[in-house]
């Protein structure tokens, strides 16, 4: 590949070449040569470690937006795009008979961060215990949602409840999409009733593996 012939070097390695190595842009021979040099070039190897750490943090930081629901305005714009399809024009998909007739339900909480963050505000042991139970319940809902996304056709509504009956969820795949790299993604809606609180969420989840789906976008989120 053509590289910028910058004069700047990190340790003994040209900066652009070292960055190309970090980004996996080099062929195997060139990469091996860089790795050989890194064994003895402490400044260059330190730079590689630093870049990996900083960009790991950058990904984690910027990735937090994945857990924040999109604005109503953006949701409306997406809907306007979809309605261009014509065949379903005039009917907003969340007003479809499938969903309109559905019992109110459930939730979820895409697990990860939100549950953990909310725990920080718990100030006594009892609340902490309840929170732990809630997190476990939500994790169970997440597993149930994975199964629904894996096996249920779009438009179907699956009811789920935990063993105690304390948590009830209604899970609905809405439509299936395919990304350019041929990965399957599905829009879904979930309503969770947990300890009398109703939480509803629409989102986009993409398949990572069998019964392994990752929510990548929250279209609406509310109680």
């Amino acid at each position: 590949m053509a590289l910028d012939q910058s004069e700047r070097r990190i340790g003994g390695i040209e900066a652009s070449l070292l960055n190309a190595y970090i980004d996996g842009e080099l062929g195997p021979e060139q990469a091996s040569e860089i790795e050989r040099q890194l064994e003895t070039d402490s400044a260059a190897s330190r730079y590689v470690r630093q870049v990996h750490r900083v960009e790991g943090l950058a990904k984690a930081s910027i990735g937090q937006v994945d857990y924040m629901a999109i604005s109503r305005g953006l949701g409306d714009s997406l809907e306007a795009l979809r309605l261009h399809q014509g065949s379903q024009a005039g009917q907003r998909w969340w007003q479809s008979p499938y969903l309109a007739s559905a019992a109110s339900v459930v939730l979820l909480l895409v697990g990860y961060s939100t549950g953990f963050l909310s725990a920080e505000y718990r100030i006594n042991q009892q609340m902490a215990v309840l929170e732990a139970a809630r997190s476990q319940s939500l994790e169970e809902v997440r597993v149930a949602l994975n199964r629904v996304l894996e096996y249920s056709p779009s438009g179907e509504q699956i009811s789920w409840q935990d063993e105690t009956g304390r948590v009830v969820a209604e899970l609905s795949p809405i439509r299936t999409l395919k990304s350019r790299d041929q990965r399957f993604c599905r829009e879904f809606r979930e309503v969770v009733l947990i300890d009398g609180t109703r939480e509803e969420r629409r989102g986009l989840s993409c398949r990572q593996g069998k019964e392994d789906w990752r929510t990548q976008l929250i279209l609406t989120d509310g109680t």
Partner: protein
Amino acid sequence: MQQFWVVKRLTNYESRVRSVFLSDHVYQQVVVLMPKLRRFAYGLSGSVENADDLIQEACTRLLSCMSEVEGYLERWLYRTIRNLHIDQVRRMAVKSRCHDDLAGRQPASTDGNLQVESLITLRQVRDLIGELPEDQRVTLLLVGVEGYSYREASELLGLPIGTVTSRVARARQKLTDAIYPNHDRETEDLGEHHGSGSI
């Protein structure tokens, strides 16, 4: 005259069919791309609200030029979001001068001391990215954060690959200089502290 009408009706029909097909296609692509677009817009603008506004405006424009972007949707979206953001920054710059140059500056939120790398938060890293010059930030977000190859990034941005590589290099140098001001020190423990990050 009659022939003209037939041709026109056929053209309209074709256009309608084309529009129906394309919109379905476009909607799918936009939704599937949305997580990447949001991270990109969030990294550019620094707030979720601004990010969603940028994407919303891009989607609105897309509605009026859907057939023209066939085959170029991804790059069109990225470029539109970038251009909208730059327009916004320029408008704001009229009111307050924009500081682009990170070099030689210490992040204000750290009392001028980022040498204790273990204390760095996710927010601080994001702020540092926000202080990069626009062109470097855009490139770093695509390559360093989203993992696009240099060739893909060059196509998305309409830049030569050499420009992409040099911008990535400059952006990284500024970030590492800011976080690791003392290059003689080994700093192995930064990655262990994701948990201390804050939004």
